[in-house]
């Protein structure tokens, strides 16, 4: 097993942004809650490597703290998807064709049928704009993704002889799902989790862009873009740096997901050579 170039590049990009988020807890170049009107709208310089915004806040510090928000929202949202979606998928596969299978899968279809961002906007509009509500909204849309993935993979695993042997040994569907099915779908979960993670970051940026994500004074990449919109023509750096942060993180996670898939999926391993 050899890690591909994609995996290295993706892992590196992801590591850089994760590191920035972690460092921001201990140290940032400038306090992001302090305004310094005298230093507003500065172009990149040695004092402010990425420049300052219209309140004189340091963009580098804001991106570092914003990474924190993005990553936290994405982790919890993917977590919701896995914690609720995986058991649902396992249950549907264990009782294939039953009423429970139908209810679970049609419920998934229902969630899939709505444009995710629209519902997220609705949820945040009804329950108030906050990071927590954004997490819940994004998380709900991760549930059917994982449920479907797990059901599909589990269905083929249920036909294996070792599952039959476990049934002969008197094990019930819950036990077989936990002992035999789940360990054999973890590879898929890791890969899909990485991809959903990047989609979560994008969704968080989109929600905070329309003002429905994390609220000020907590910086977020999406709102930085929104704030930069009116000044884009004469201060492009305001939009370019947060935009690049989103782009590179999402790209990194996607590359990592692809690389992990190549590494973990034995069916692709041969074709890769």
């Amino acid at each position, binding site marked *: 097993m050899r890690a591909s170039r994609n995996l290295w590049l993706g892992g590196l990009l992801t590591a850089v942004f994760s590191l920035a988020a972690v460092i921001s807890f201990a140290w940032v170049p400038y306090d992001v809650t302090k305004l310094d009107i005298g230093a507003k709208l500065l172009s990149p310089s040695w004092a402010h490597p990425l420049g300052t915004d219209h309140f004189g806040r340091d963009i580098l510090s804001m991106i570092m703290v914003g990474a924190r928000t993005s990553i936290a929202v994405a982790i919890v949202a993917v977590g919701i998807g896995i914690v609720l979606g995986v058991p649902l998928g396992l249950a549907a596969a264990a009782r294939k064709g039953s009423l429970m299978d139908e209810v679970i899968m049609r419920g998934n279809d229902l969630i899939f049928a709505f444009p995710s961002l629209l519902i997220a906007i609705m949820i945040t509009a009804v329950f108030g704009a906050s990071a927590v509500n954004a997490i819940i909204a994004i998380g709900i849309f991760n549930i059917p993704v994982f449920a479907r993935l797990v059901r599909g993979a589990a269905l083929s695993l249920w036909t294996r002889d*070792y599952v039959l*042997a476990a*049934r002969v*040994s*008197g*094990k019930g569907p819950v036990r077989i799902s936990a002992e035999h099915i789940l*360990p*054999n779908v973890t590879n898929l979960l890791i890969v899909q989790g990485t991809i959903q993670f990047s989609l979560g970051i994008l969704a968080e940026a989109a929600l905070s862009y329309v003002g429905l994500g994390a609220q000020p004074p907590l910086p977020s990449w999406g709102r930085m873009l929104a704030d930069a919109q009116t000044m884009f023509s004469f201060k492009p750096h305001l939009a370019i740096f947060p935009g690049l942060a989103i782009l590179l993180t999402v790209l990194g996670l996607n590359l990592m997901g692809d690389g992990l898939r190549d590494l973990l999926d034995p069916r692709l391993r041969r074709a890769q050579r």
Partner: protein
Amino acid sequence: MSLLEIEGLDLAIHGTPILKDVSMQLEAGRILGIIGESGSGKSMTALAVMQLLPEGATARGTVRLNGHDMLALPEAKLCALRGNEVGMVFQEPMTALNPIQPIGRQVAETILVHESVSRREAMARAREALNRCELPEERFPMSRYPHELSGGQRQRVVIAMAIALRPKLLIADEPTTALDVTTQAEVLRLLKRLVQEDGMGLMLITHDLAVVSDMADEIVIMREGEIVEAGPCPGIFSTMSHPYSLGLLEASDHQPERSAATAEAPLLEVREVIRDYPLPRRALWGERDHFRAVDGVSFEIRRGESLGLVGESGCGKSTLTRAILGLEAVQGGEILLGGAPVFSGKRPNRAVRRKMHVVFQDPYGSFNPRWKVGPLVAEPFHLMDTPPYGEARDAAISEALESVGLSAEDAEKYIHEFSGGQRQRIAIARALIIKPELIILDEAVSALDVSIRAQILDLLADLGKRFGLTFLFISHDLSVVRNVTDRCMVMKSGRIVEEGETAEIFEAPQHDYTKELIAAVPQLPEARRA
């Protein structure tokens, strides 16, 4: 000049030697049988002829096909030769065809790749190739899709693709291994006829000595990349001298020593069992049809007996196995083990299920790849009310592993560290650990090499003696059933058509289907018995 000449062929993949000094010849219109077990290099020899070697392979020596030096030709020339002068038939007809293309187009495709003819003409020639492979137009129009055909019919399509351009050499790599005996006999007859009609050379690769002994003009026996014995057939069977080939010959008709201690009391009683599967509704409110997979089957196995159940794919033997194991409820009749029902009410009966276990066919699919051998073997403990734990559990695992000829340390290894034969031993250890009375062997030796199969059969016979086990031996392979069972049943379309003492059934079959099955089994020539 011979059609195919291989001389002193050495092959190494990433420096690991695969073939050592392999030489053979094949004349036009003749059949060359290459025999060997897995890892013997027989398939690699075929791939070397086609120059379809895996990456990192380096070949030395000469491979001369119809005057072309195959090792020296550039890739473009090789592409022109493949399919045109050499055709190939693989083992698995399920995966050799494209599932989303009709069969006519797939056969025509080979013609279009090699010759600049119109699509209409290619289709006409494809039709002709299919006809020659006994797929007549009335029953098999070109618009059929692979999923509408049976395994044997698909293999005929694959053969039609291979012979559409009338190649000079046809390579068939285990062409009948995945097929039922009667289908196997038909496909072998077809291959033989095509060889005679077209005067092409056939390289028939197989692990089964009996298959080639009926067909081949010359036989080559390979082991670990080397040729151990070669000669004309059937003469070779009386002149064979290498211990490996003699061992192979013995193993392919191996008769394990068994004790004949059977009690009168029945252990398993199956009475008028019916198993229906619902078919999809034709109309929304229409009546639901049923497919009767097992239709009023009754039999019993006496304690200590070994009973064979023979039938071809789709006859209902697997469905019956599942019903006996208590995995599925039956729609009629009853199944009793030791006098108690396997399935009581809506739930399988744990106390009864404890008395039996099963060994499956596929040594590779029978184990969760993420578990170590110890927990895998200990899995049936789940059926016990008070399963042993701690040291008692480890001791039981060691005992089970040692009783099948493995060591206690193997419990700490993962399943991928074992070969197919060793895995089947582990599967037997798993079945033995709860000390059952009945072991169901569902094609348990069908996927194994003959010499390994002989070892496993010996092991089963030995275990039967030591633990007083009763066996239900389910197989499509009559030669295995013949050597290891006391009584035997033949199943067709969900019914038992014949039942009796194994020796009697094989010597004087009563039912037409049994006669057909027995006649279809390839036989080794008598010479070897001397």
